């Protein structure tokens, strides 16, 4: 910049400056400990208000006591000196949000963490804490949010605007499931609008966050995703605020009439950080030393997920919170709290995971209370039958070890159940579309796979899809539209699958080798 330009800019700035007496409500730091500052004065400051220290650092008022205010320092460096002046700002903690954030990794205050410069132009300044949309602004959940994972989309479908909990012990594939869901949004299955994804990493190792971001990048999912990260090495204040920042970003897109998905990975660590802050603030400890308002903390966050009605723009915010259980105990304090807040849960089980069933979804303990209404008609049609077969298999599974001692009908159920379990297995990072899900689940539920050896089910599934996509484009289009399958379509599909099954059972004789050429 030239010197003349700087002079001109300053002159313009000074020319437009509205000079008014500055009115401020001041306080003075009286004590500092573990990121919590106590300051006297600040008689006009409110709960949740942003305050500014003399050196430019910011804080958030968490408690207003008779003689002092307790302030959470919002920076990694907590060393605020005693006696420092602090002034109220009269504003809540806010974040500038626009499309510029897409593809970026930021902290809860909107600072870029990916090493690239970030300039957020336009958009809106959104408050981290907001009241959830009221009843009159909401519309029923009626559009599916496809995860691309067969077992989820068939048995516990998720709708746009729903809150679906993912719960399970460590290393059971909770994060893998949400990563698959985010990756699947690139396909815009069933012609649905693009979903803006916000992945909120709370208290995770930096290496894990970097791996997740790299995966999004590799799979082409980063372009429509924003990562809000507060790693394990950041202060509890940042981990506490991260999900609220992620939610505020999601709300911005929802209010623009777009569909957004926010993943909180995970709310157990979020509860830990809030417990730490509450204990440092001197709030009374309750069950498991959590503060009394731990339920309200998560309910006010998750209640912000909604599907807005047409007058509100018709956007949606879907929430996928993750909770980590200890030794499979879903009746612990935080899991039961979040289960009661959400519209359903996907329960991942260690035993299933270790026995090779991945995703390790326990179909019995998993439920979706509203997503069924948003499921595509074709998938709902075929998954109903499969669900029944699966339930019967699970009740008979204990007898399967007796093998031939069982009657024929029971053996048939067990054979079919094993095929269903096999078809529900799905490798990581390979989400599939509604068409492939419908075909696979129809084949397994109606017994078309009963004759296929269990170990060849995955290969058969792949070949069926290749066969249909190459040879029956019209049939694929009908099934892939999501409409209810009529009798003719079902008959045609059954014929195509049966024909391929026959071919696999009785492969055509190989062509004889040509005689060796004469020398």
């Amino acid at each position, binding site marked *: 910049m030239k010197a003349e330009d700087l002079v001109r*800019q*300053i002159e313009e*700035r*000074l020319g437009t*400056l509205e*000079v008014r*007496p*500055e*009115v*401020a*409500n*001041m*306080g003075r730091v*009286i004590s500092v400990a573990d990121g919590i500052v106590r300051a*006297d*004065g*600040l*008689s*006009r400051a409110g709960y949740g208000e942003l305050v500014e220290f003399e050196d430019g650092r910011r804080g958030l008022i968490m408690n207003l006591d*008779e*003689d002092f205010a307790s302030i959470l320092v919002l920076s990694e460096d907590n060393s605020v000196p005693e006696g420092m002046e602090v002034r109220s700002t009269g504003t809540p903690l806010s974040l500038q949000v626009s499309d510029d954030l897409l593809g970026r990794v930021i902290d809860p205050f909107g600072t870029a963490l990916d090493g690239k410069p970030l300039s957020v132009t336009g958009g809106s300044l959104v408050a981290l804490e907001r009241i959830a949309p009221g009843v009159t602004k909401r519309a029923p959940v009626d559009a599916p949010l496809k995860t691309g994972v067969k077992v989820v989309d068939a048995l516990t479908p998720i709708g746009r605007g729903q809150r679906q909990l993912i719960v399970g012990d460590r290393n059971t594939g909770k994060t893998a499931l949400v990563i698959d869901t985010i990756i699947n949004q690139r396909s815009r299955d069933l012609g649905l609008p693009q979903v803006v994804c916000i992945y909120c990493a709370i208290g995770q190792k930096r290496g894990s966050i970097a791996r997740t971001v790299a995966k999004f990048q590799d799979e082409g999912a980063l372009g429509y995703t924003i990562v809000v990260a507060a790693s394990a090495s950041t202060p509890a204040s940042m981990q506490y605020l991260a999900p609220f920042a992620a939610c505020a970003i999601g709300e911005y897109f929802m209010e623009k009439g777009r569909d957004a998905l926010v993943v909180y990975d995970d709310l157990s660590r979020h509860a830990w950080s809030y417990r730490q802050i509450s204990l440092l603030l001197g709030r009374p400890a309750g069950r498991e030393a959590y503060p009394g308002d731990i339920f309200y903390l998560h309910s006010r966050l998750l209640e912000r997920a909604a599907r807005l009605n047409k007058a509100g723009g018709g956007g949606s915010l879907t929430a996928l919170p993750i909770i980590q259980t200890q030794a499979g105990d879903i009746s612990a304090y935080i899991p039961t709290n979040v289960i009661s807040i959400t519209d359903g849960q996907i329960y991942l089980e260690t035993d299933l995971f270790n026995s090779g069933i991945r995703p390790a979804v326990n179909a019995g303990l998993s439920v979706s209370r509203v997503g069924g209404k948003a499921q595509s008609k074709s998938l709902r049609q075929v998954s109903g039958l499969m669900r029944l077969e699966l339930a019967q298999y699970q009740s008979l599974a204990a007898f399967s070890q007796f093998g031939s001692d069982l009657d024929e009908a029971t053996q048939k159920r067990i054979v079919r159940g094993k095929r269903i379990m096999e078809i529900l297995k799905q490798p990581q990072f390979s989400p599939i579309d509604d068409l492939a899900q419908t075909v696979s689940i129809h084949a397994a539920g109606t017994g078309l796979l009963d004759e296929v050896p269990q170990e060849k089910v995955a290969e058969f599934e792949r070949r069926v899809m290749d066969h249909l996509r190459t040879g029956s484009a019209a049939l694929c289009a009908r099934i892939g539209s999501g409409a209810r399958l009529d009798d003719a379509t079902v008959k045609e599909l059954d014929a195509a699958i049966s024909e391929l099954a026959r071919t696999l059972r009785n492969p055509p004789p190989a062509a004889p080798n040509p005689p060796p050429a004469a020398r």
Partner: protein
Amino acid sequence: MKRLVALALSPDGQVNDEVASELLSQLSRSDLKRFLAAFRLELKKRVVLVSLAGRPGARLDETIARAWPGRRLDVETDEALGAGVKVSAGDDIVDASVHGYIREIIEELGDT
């Protein structure tokens, strides 16, 4: 503590000797510290400190009494303000000085 301060200090600024001696004998060291902080804050609230770069105007008393009724007025000269006035009433500060304007401009320019 606020109640103790109210007992010890009457609205006209007089200290109740009986309450004061009781406090000095009964309160622990840490409670005395808290009491002192609350007492100082209360004294601060009852005073309006006006800092001026030059001489006070003729109607200063009247203006301050209208804005903060019932408070004692202290006036001090602070040449560092350049010009204008800075009023401190308890933990509220109204800065209408040249020094304050310049600081505000610097902050605004820093944000751009």
